[in-house]
């Protein structure tokens, strides 16, 4: 079996700070293959965005890789120098879709100028990244941008390039940001809650678009969200994170139909689209500065036993493609 395009294995990252060390990622496991959309869900502060930053080499200074690896096409990029990640990975091999379409654009440059800058440094095929392009290359780059804007269904893409971000609606801006992620024809797309800032109708459209684009461009898509509903619509597989740990992974339909980790169950019970009474999860995600020992969820877990507070549970392979880090999980 060939290796998946993007593999995160046992990733452990610690940040040294004034108030002590924070284990912001502690055993994160994930794979994404071409044409596949994988969701990462969890409450705020669970390390979802940190995971994306780690993949893109954007962790704050002082972050240190304790263990594990991030393999992209088999190469461990977790240990690459930042400069090399910046040059080879960001924008070029992996496109990035940010969370907030209102704040992520530079307000004083046209969207075309900003998209062109992504292409410039990620390089058109056969064009080295450089500050000045010949008129010919410039025209080729522009044609590429227009083509990409068409793919995300921006009307009149020719003129859209010469307009400023504030002249577009939130949904259109998010489409343009997605086009920016696709401009260099990357092999993977990392999306950081790309629908959170949008209204519900627009959310639906963006999710559908992402689904279609993942197939059309044959990219591996990693989709981070706190919203199980969005993950259900978009993702083939889902990975549930709690306090920097991956607690459950599996095919989305299976996980939603029968979540096996108590945290996954609790998170699903919070979702308003679900039948039955709406429940909250008591307590809050613990501080990464002093995480609870053992299973990090045990202080909030209704099913915790004494062993949960001492030993981190191993991943249990339960059913096809499912792994659960809980002492109650039973192997298939």
């Amino acid at each position, binding site marked *: 079996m060939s290796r998946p395009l993007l593999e995160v294995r046992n990733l452990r990252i610690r940040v040294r700070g004034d108030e002590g060390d924070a284990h912001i990622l502690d055993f994160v496991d994930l794979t994404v293959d071409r044409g596949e959309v994988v969701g990462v869900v969890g409450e705020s502060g669970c390390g979802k965005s940190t995971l994306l930053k780690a993949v893109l080499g954007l962790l704050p200074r002082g972050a240190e890789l304790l263990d594990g690896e991030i393999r992209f096409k088999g190469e461990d990029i977790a240990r690459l120098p930042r400069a090399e990640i910046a040059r080879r990975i960001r924008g070029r091999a992996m496109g990035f879709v940010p969370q907030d379409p209102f704040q*992520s654009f530079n307000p004083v440059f046209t969207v075309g100028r*900003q998209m062109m800058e992504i292409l410039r*440094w990620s390089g058109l095929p056969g064009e080295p990244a450089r500050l000045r392009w010949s008129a010919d290359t410039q025209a080729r780059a522009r044609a590429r941008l227009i083509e990409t804007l068409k793919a995300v269904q921006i009307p009149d893409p020719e003129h859209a390039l010469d307009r400023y971000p504030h002249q577009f609606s939130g949904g259109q801006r998010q489409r343009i940001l997605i086009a920016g992620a696709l401009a260099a024809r990357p092999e993977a797309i990392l999306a950081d809650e790309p629908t959170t800032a949008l209204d519900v109708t627009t959310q639906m459209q963006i999710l559908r678009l992402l689904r279609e684009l993942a197939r059309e461009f044959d990219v591996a898509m990693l989709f981070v969200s706190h919203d199980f509903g969005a993950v259900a619509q978009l993702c083939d597989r889902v990975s549930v994170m709690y306090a920097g740990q991956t607690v459950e992974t599996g095919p989305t339909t299976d996980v939603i139909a029968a979540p096996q980790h108590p945290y996954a169950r609790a998170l699903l019970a919070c979702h308003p689209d679900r039948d039955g009474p709406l429940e909250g999860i008591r307590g809050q995600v613990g501080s990464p500065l002093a995480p609870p020992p053992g299973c990090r969820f045990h202080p909030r877990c209704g099913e915790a036993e004494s062993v949960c507070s001492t030993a981190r549970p191993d991943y249990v392979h339960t059913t096809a493609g499912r792994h659960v880090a809980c002492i109650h999980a039973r192997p298939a």
Partner: protein
Amino acid sequence: MALFIVRRVLMIVPILLGLLLLTFGMLRLAPGDPAAAIAGDNATPEQIAAIREDLGLNRHLIVQFADYAWNAAQGDFGVSAYSNRAVGLDIAQRLPATLELTFAALVIAAVGGIVIGALTGAWYNSSFDHFVRVVTVLGLATASFWFAIMLQLVFALDLGLLPLRGRLPAGMEVPPDTTGFLLLDSLIAGRLDAFGATLSHLALPAVTIAFGGLATVARFTRSSVIEAMHSEYAAYETAVGYPRRRVLFPFALKNALVTPVTQVGLLFGAFVSNAVAVEAVFDWPGLGSYLVQAIFAADYTAVLAVTLVIGFVYGVVNIVVDVVHGLLDPRVAERM
């Protein structure tokens, strides 16, 4: 954008009207009867009335104002009661020297402040940043006449690098007066020697005037560059592969320029009043000494004419600033 520029330029009309009303009002409010003052102590009421008739002082105020505005538009600000010379001529002779000096100071403050501010903002808390912070605090706290004398002592007297005073070396032939701005005039006449000499004479007084303003511009630029570099869009630009130097320039910097550019417009006023003292130290043949003289002689015509002209230039400078503002940020152009 074109419409925005036209609208901004038209703003000069109300500014000008307001200024004219102000100076006209002050002239009329000045204590004493100008006709009686001109006629002297032994004049009969008939003589005073004749003079009043002569000066048009018994016409309707609106007519007088229209007359005043019309004359001012043609550069005729009346005759100084003190020197009996046409104020317009005096100003025309001295204004270019002052404007050349303040504009040079403005360029130094803007360019120097923005470059230093951008560098310290990009590498904030570096030792360079700390050094600049100390210097800028000094810049804000230093009295300009003292600073002027220090510059003269070091650069003119000790090192002999730059001239001590004046606009041109004694004995150098002055280029033909086309604009009154020596830099322009010497270029027009193809006199590179005069151009260089003018620049070296400008250096010390212009730096003196610019110092405090440069410090202000640098500090504003620094903090807005830091803010822009910590913005969400800068984080996004990094995540999609912009090199850091591009995130900084031009992408963060263009955003960060809005505040300091506004500052530059406001500085012009401070620079003109600074110029009064600095011109005295550097023996600069500008409006400064003229204004001081006029104020001591209670020469209202001259003082208000200078006020009007400086106010007008101030308005123009700030309209230019607004236009630059609109060019930097398209949202500004759409709002106004």
